C-alpha cells in the first residue's frame, strides 16, 4: 500500500530530477571541456586551425573592442571627473579610470563583447554541423569531432581574450584621457602619473587571470551548447540551433559575471 502524500512527493521528485539533470549537465560540460583542453596539446598541433580561429575570435573583434572600450573610457572619464571634482580630487581621475578598467571592466566587457560576436557564432556553427550530421560524418571518418572543432576554438580563446583585454584597457585609458584631459582640462602629466602610481602589477595580473577564466567559460559553454543541440528537449533542427545560440549567449554572460565576482573576492 502506498502511503506517500502526492502533494509532498511530486514537487520533491521534480526537484530531485532537476538536481540530477543539473549535476549531470555540469559533469557533461566538465568532461567536454577537459577533452577539448587535452586535445589542444595532442600531436600534431592543429596550428592552421588555431590561427584561423584567432583571426575569427581576435582580429575580427578588434574594431568592436576598440569602439566599445573608447566609449567606456570616455564615459568613465566624464562620470569620474564630475564625482571627483566635488571632493577636489579630480587629479585622481587617471587612477580611477585605469583601475576600473584593468581590474573589472576590461576583462568583463571584453568577454561580453566576444560572447556576442564569436560565442554565438561558435554555438550556431557547431549546432548546424550537428543537425546536418557533419559531426557524425567526422566521427565515422575516425576524426575526433571535439579535437577537430572545439580544441582550436578553446586555444584561440586563450590567446585572444588576454590580448583583447589588454587592448580594451589601453584604449579605455585613452578614452578617459580624451574626456578628462582634452575636454575637461585635467593636466595630462597628472593623469598618467596617477595611473603609474596607483596601478600595480597585481591589478594587471588579476585582470589577466580573469580574462583566461572567461576565455575558458565562453568557449566551453558556446561549443558545448552547439555540440549537444540534438539532445535539447523541445528543439529540433533550426529551432534547436537558435535555442542553443541563445543559451550560449545568456549562459556565458551569466557565468562570466558570477566567475568575475568569485575571482574578485579572492583577488582583492
Amino acid at each position, binding site marked *: 500500500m502506498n502511503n506517500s502524500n502526492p502533494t509532498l512527493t511530486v514537487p520533491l521528485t521534480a526537484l530531485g530530477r532537476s538536481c540530477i539533470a543539473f549535476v549531470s549537465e555540469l559533469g557533461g560540460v566538465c568532461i567536454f571541456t577537459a577533452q577539448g583542453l587535452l586535445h589542444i596539446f595532442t600531436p600534431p598541433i592543429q596550428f592552421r586551425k588555431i590561427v584561423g580561429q584567432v583571426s575569427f575570435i581576435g582580429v575580427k573583434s578588434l574594431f568592436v573592442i576598440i569602439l566599445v572600450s573608447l566609449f567606456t573610457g570616455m564615459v568613465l572619464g566624464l562620470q569620474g571627473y564630475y564625482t571627483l571634482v566635488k571632493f577636489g580630487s579630480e587629479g585622481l581621475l587617471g587612477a580611477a579610470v585605469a583601475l576600473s578598467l584593468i581590474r573589472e571592466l576590461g576583462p568583463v566587457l571584453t568577454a561580453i563583447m566576444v560572447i556576442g560576436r564569436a560565442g554565438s557564432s561558435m554555438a550556431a*556553427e557547431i549546432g*548546424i*554541423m550537428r543537425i*546536418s*550530421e*557533419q559531426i*557524425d*560524418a567526422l*566521427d*565515422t*571518418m*575516425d*576524426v575526433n569531432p571535439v579535437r*577537430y572543432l572545439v580544441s582550436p576554438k578553446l586555444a584561440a580563446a586563450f590567446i585572444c581574450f588576454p590580448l583583447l583585454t589588454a587592448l580594451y584597457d589601453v584604449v579605455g585609458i585613452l578614452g578617459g584621457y580624451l574626456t578628462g584631459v582634452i575636454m575637461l582640462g585635467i593636466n595630462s602629466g597628472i593623469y598618467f602619473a596617477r595611473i603609474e602610481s596607483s596601478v600595480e602589477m597585481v591589478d594587471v595580473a588579476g585582470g589577466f587571470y580573469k580574462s583566461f577564466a572567461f576565455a575558458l567559460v565562453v568557449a566551453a559553454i558556446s561549443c558545448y551548447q552547439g555540440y549537444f543541440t540534438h539532445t535539447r528537449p523541445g528543439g529540433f533542427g533550426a529551432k534547436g540551433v537558435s535555442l542553443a545560440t541563445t543559451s550560449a549567449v545568456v549562459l556565458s554572460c551569466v557565468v562570466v559575471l558570477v566567475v568575475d565576482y568569485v575571482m574578485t573576492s579572492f583577488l582583492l
Partner: protein
Amino acid sequence: MDEISTLLPPPPPADDAAPLIEFSKVSKSFGDKMVLDEVDLTIHEGHITSIIGKSGVGKSVLLKHVIGLLQPDKGEVRFRGKSLAAMNREERRALKREFAYMFQNNALFDSLTIFENVALPLTERTKLKESEIRELVTSKLVELEIGDVGGKYPSQISGGMQKRVALARALITGPRIVLFDEPTTGLDPIRKNAVLAMIAHYQKKFGFTAILVSHDIPDVFYISQRVAILEEQKVLFQGEPVELELIENEVVRQFVGSLEALKDELTGLETRQNIERRFAREMERFAAVDQPFAVMTFTVDNPEDVRVGLGHLATQRLVQRLSEFLARTLHPTDISARFSEYRILTLMPRTTLDQAQRVRERLARNLGGDDILRINSRAACFSFSLRCGLAQCRSGASLADLVDEAEHDVKPIAHFECHPKP
C-alpha cells in the same frame, strides 16, 4: 540500366563465408517509439547487401548501429564475431578506420570546398604530403566527373553532384566496408543508374563489403548479392534477391511487385492479390449458398504490334482508358485487375453466364462507338483487336483455370486500325 547490366551477373554469394557483421536480437527505441525489435541480420564479407523497406521503418537506424553511431538498447552487434560493446577504444578506432559511411543527406562540410571535403579524411587521418593528397583527390574527383567543381562549396553545386562528392569522400581512403544510406535518393534516373553502377563497379574493383539502404526497387536487386527487408521493426526476409520471388509473404510480394502496383494505381485497377482474395470469397459463397459468379477476360490479341506501334507510355494510357471504360460500364460490385501485361480480368459476382454474355454484347456495342482506343501512333500503320472471354464458376476450379476456360469462349469486341498522321 545498360550501364548496370554490363556489370552483371554478380558473383554468387558464398554461403559458407563467415559473417562479417551480425545483428543478434538488436532492439532500439527512441522514447516510446520502438524502431528495431529483436532484429537478426547477417552481413557477409565482400558482398553488396541491400536493406530495403518503407520510409521511416528504421533502415538508417539499423545502418548507424553497424558503425557504432547508435548503440542497441538490447541485443548486440558483432563484428567478426566480437561484440562492438565489448571493444575497447583502440579496437573501435581500428574498426572505424575500416569503414566509410555515405550519409543520406550527404553530410558534406558546408564551410569547406569540395576539394577540402574529399581531402579531409586524408589530411586528418594520414601523414601524406600535401602534393600526394592533391593528386589522390584530383584523380578521384575526375573519376567521378566532378573534377571541375573542386573549388566550389557544397551549396553551389547540384544535388546529384553532392551525392558524387559524398561518394568520393567515402571512397578516398580505400575502405573495406562502405555503408551507403540511400545513395540514389533525389537523383534523376540516369544518374541513379550511374551511381548504382559505380557502387557495383568499385565494389568489384576494390572488393569492399557494401551495405546499401535503398528504396530503389528493383534497381538495387541487380547489384546486390543479398537483400534484407525491414518491416514493422523486424527483418522480414534476408537472402538472395532471386529467393525473394519465391517467398509467399504478402509484404515481400508487395516489395517485389511494387512497380506493378504503382502501374495498377495509375490505371485504377485492383491488384492481383486483391482479385485473388475476392475470388476465394466468391468461391466460398458459391460452395455455401450456390451463388454463381462469372469471370470475364479482356485480352489484346497482338501485343507486340501494340508495343511497337504505341510505345510503352501510350500502351499504359490505353490500359488506363480501358479500365476507366469498364468502371463506367460494368456493375459497381464487379472488380477488374490486371492479370498480365495485356490482359485484364473482371470478376462478376452474382452473375450467370447468360447475363455475362449480354454484358459482353453491350460492351462491344459501347466500345465500338467510343473513342477510347484512338491514340496517336508514332510508327507505321498497325492494328489490334480486343477479345473478351467468358467463364462460369464451377466447384474446385482455381482462378487460373477459369481464365483458361474463358479463352475457349472468346469473341472480339473491338478492332482498331491506326493510320499514322501524314
